[in-house]
């Protein structure tokens, strides 16, 4: 079996389903705008404190949007009983996992296309290539972990409760390194290169670990 062909087929199928139903992206985009609006009215924002507050709001919105996006990846398959049909094929579970993670990452990136300009609009912070790079790098690792835990909790009833409990502690490294990178890109003191390097290291580490674990999670 060609794992790349399988992963691309799974990702294409998930993205096509989302395009037809528009179940997730509009709701997440709306959630992101509301989170930014609440942040904007909840804090006294001015030109001086915006770069220190905006990154916090950005990561909060991203974390909660990610939890919803990744949680749906396997829950929908379970609800329509299609996961078993997919796993009953000779396709590698790791390739299936990679396809699901790729689709979930792309859906979150679409939400980020709304989030980042809206952040600039509400908080007046610069939208630079450095900010975009930090957010995209964090998204990759967070998606790998989020989709793996979504696959684990999809089998249990209290999955909406369990997913954040399992995922959030492991997302902390991405939030710390990503937060530092975004803050320094917005002009606050900090080493941008070091934070980006850390994000890359975490991405590689968690991509390898989740690929190894996916086989056992999806195999039975």
């Amino acid at each position, binding site marked *: 079996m060609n794992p790349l*062909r*399988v992963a691309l*087929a*799974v990702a294409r199928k998930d993205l096509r389903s989302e395009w*037809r139903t528009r179940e997730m992206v509009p709701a997440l985009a709306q959630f992101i705008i509301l989170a930014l609006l609440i942040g904007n009215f909840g804090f006294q924002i001015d030109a001086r404190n915006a770069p220190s507050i905006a990154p916090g709001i950005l990561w909060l919105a991203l974390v909660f949007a990610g939890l919803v996006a990744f949680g749906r990846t396997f829950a929908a398959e379970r609800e329509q009983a*299609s996961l078993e*049909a997919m796993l*009953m094929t*000779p396709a590698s579970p790791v390739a299936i996992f990679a396809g699901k993670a790729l689709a979930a990452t792309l859906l979150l990136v679409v939400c980020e296309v709304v989030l980042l300009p809206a952040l600039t609009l509400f908080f007046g912070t610069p939208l630079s290539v450095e900010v975009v790079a930090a957010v995209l790098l964090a998204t990759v690792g967070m998606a790998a972990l989020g989709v793996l835990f979504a696959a684990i909790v999809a089998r249990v009833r209290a999955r909406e409760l369990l997913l954040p409990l399992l995922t959030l502690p492991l997302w902390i490294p991405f939030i710390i390194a990503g937060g530092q990178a975004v803050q320094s890109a917005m002009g606050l003191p900090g080493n941008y290169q070091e934070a980006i390097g850390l994000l890359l290291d975490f991405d590689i580490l968690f991509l390898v670990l989740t690929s190894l674990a996916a086989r056992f999670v999806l195999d*039975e």
Partner: protein
Amino acid sequence: MSLLVGNGLTHWFGRELALDGVDLVLDTGEHMAVLGDNGAGKTTLLRILATALRPTAGQLQIAGLDAFREKRRLRHHLGYVAHAPGLYPALSAVENLEFFCDLQEESRTRVGEVLDVVGLTPVAHRRADQLSRGMQQRLAIGRAILHEPRLLVLDEPDASLGEAAADLLTRVMEGKTVILATHDHALANRLCPRTLELRHGRSLGTATRLRVVR
């Protein structure tokens, strides 16, 4: 020659014994029906035979391979229709089958042939959630035969098919080794020369259909 050999297949769900030491042999090309009331263990047995569920105890060999150690290899030769159709509602009938062609490494040209066999060509481009329950079941059967498996495991495939069930299943089962679970004794007799009766997870033995010759 035996394609499937199961010995002492037993399964517990927690403290509930669902299947109690069932032995089963199925020859190549043979069709066997599994009969029994609700809760008799039909679905558990079929899920085990389809390698979707690992039994608590017992051995299963399919085509000479250990069904659980080499299940990924075996799945090239195995088609399974479960209780629920398990389709992607937002995708059309064609797209559902094309997706499974990609997963099976099967040429997409098979899709047209399969849609013909299950009688869904006129609704090929209709979304799965806009198909009737019977059409969805036909599509699930089509998905199971996409890769031309040697062994077909069918769990109540006649559900929602109505009067067309026997003709459709006859076409689908032709040339394959088949084990199917059903409540419909008449259908079982028509399609399968041999039946296995289950009660409370135990096998009551197999029976062979008698033909009356004038």
